[in-house]
């Protein structure tokens, strides 16, 4: 069985696609197809598929291009907003964990009731001195700091949302 297609298959297919086959194409082509098994087979297959395509075109009930465009825009905007929300949530979570870690370490280091059990920390004198200064400052600025943090946590999502949504 040879798999070499006839050299006139493309010509025949073109005639079928543009509607000239079989009545308005050349007699030569019709005679060739009648005599060529490969082209004859191709006309059967291609004819069925082309008819099916024509029928599908008439059946298709597709949304208008305007409606499709609107759907693209709407869905795109939804996905951008969702991505921004996730980003903000991650940053807030990271900030919260960082602040919590600092607070816990600070309490652990400087609490009178626990410092005696944290021997590894008391060995690092310089580390303790720096941290002591940091925590002392935090205590001094405690209230304004809490307000600033709360404002950031509240406003950051709004700012990011405004930045990533289009007009």
């Amino acid at each position, binding site marked *: 069985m040879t*798999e070499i297609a006839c050299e006139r298959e493309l010509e025949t297919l073109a005639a079928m696609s543009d509607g000239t086959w079989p009545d308005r194409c050349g007699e030569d082509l019709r005679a060739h197809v009648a005599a060529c098994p490969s082209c004859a087979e191709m006309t059967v297959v291609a004819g069925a598929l082309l008819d099916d395509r024509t029928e599908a075109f008439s059946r298709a009930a597709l949304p208008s291009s305007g409606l499709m465009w609107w759907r693209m825009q709407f869905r795109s905007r939804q996905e951008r907003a969702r991505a921004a929300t996730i980003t903000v949530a991650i940053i807030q979570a990271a900030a919260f964990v960082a602040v919590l870690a600092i607070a816990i370490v600070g309490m652990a280091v400087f609490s009178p009731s626990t410092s005696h059990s944290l021997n590894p920390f008391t060995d690092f004198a310089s580390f303790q001195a720096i941290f002591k200064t940091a925590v002392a400052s935090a205590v001094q600025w405690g209230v304004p700091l809490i307000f600033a943090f709360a404002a950031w946590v509240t406003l*950051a999502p709004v700012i990011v949302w405004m930045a990533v949504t289009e007009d």
Partner: protein
Amino acid sequence: MPAIITVMTAGVNMVASEVELRERDEAAIPAPLGEEEFRAFYERTARPVWAYLRRITGDEHLADDFLQEAYYRFYRSTTVHESESHRRNYLYRIATNLVRDHARRHRHGYDVSLPESDDPNEPRDEANAPHHVDDRMDLGRAMSRMEPLQRELLWLAYAQGSSHEEIASVVGVNKGSVKSLLYRARRKLATLLHSSEPQGDTND
């Protein structure tokens, strides 16, 4: 205090840089089609794509869903298209991959539930019905017995008129393999069509 302020500042900077990065990315990436261009492209290609999806899935409702998803993924893609042909092939490749992914997820093996019968309420015009009408009904049954790749190949080659190179890029096979794969698919479909010729149709 310096440490905590540093953490807060870092958080704000991260947010700002994320926004800036996205804006820079959007500027660098070729912008999606504008509205006029998209709508014109859609009007040129929607019916052929839907017809393709309908035949390779055998389900008009699935074809509707895949059509919408394909255009959305095409719209959001960042691929630079060299020509209208390249753009169209890319859309067909998206559509083909959607169907394949769906089949994998649902483990249908992409069996086509065919055929959708002619609408029983549609008046039959026997005198003017194309003589291929029986072949068309049989086409659905015949295609349901073909491999998914064979359905794709046959449609793209004969219904769509795509070149072997275009077909290869859409279905993801070697260009050199398209000819032989197509030949075998065509032989199989021709055999199925001949074997399913009506012998006294009882569809009424």
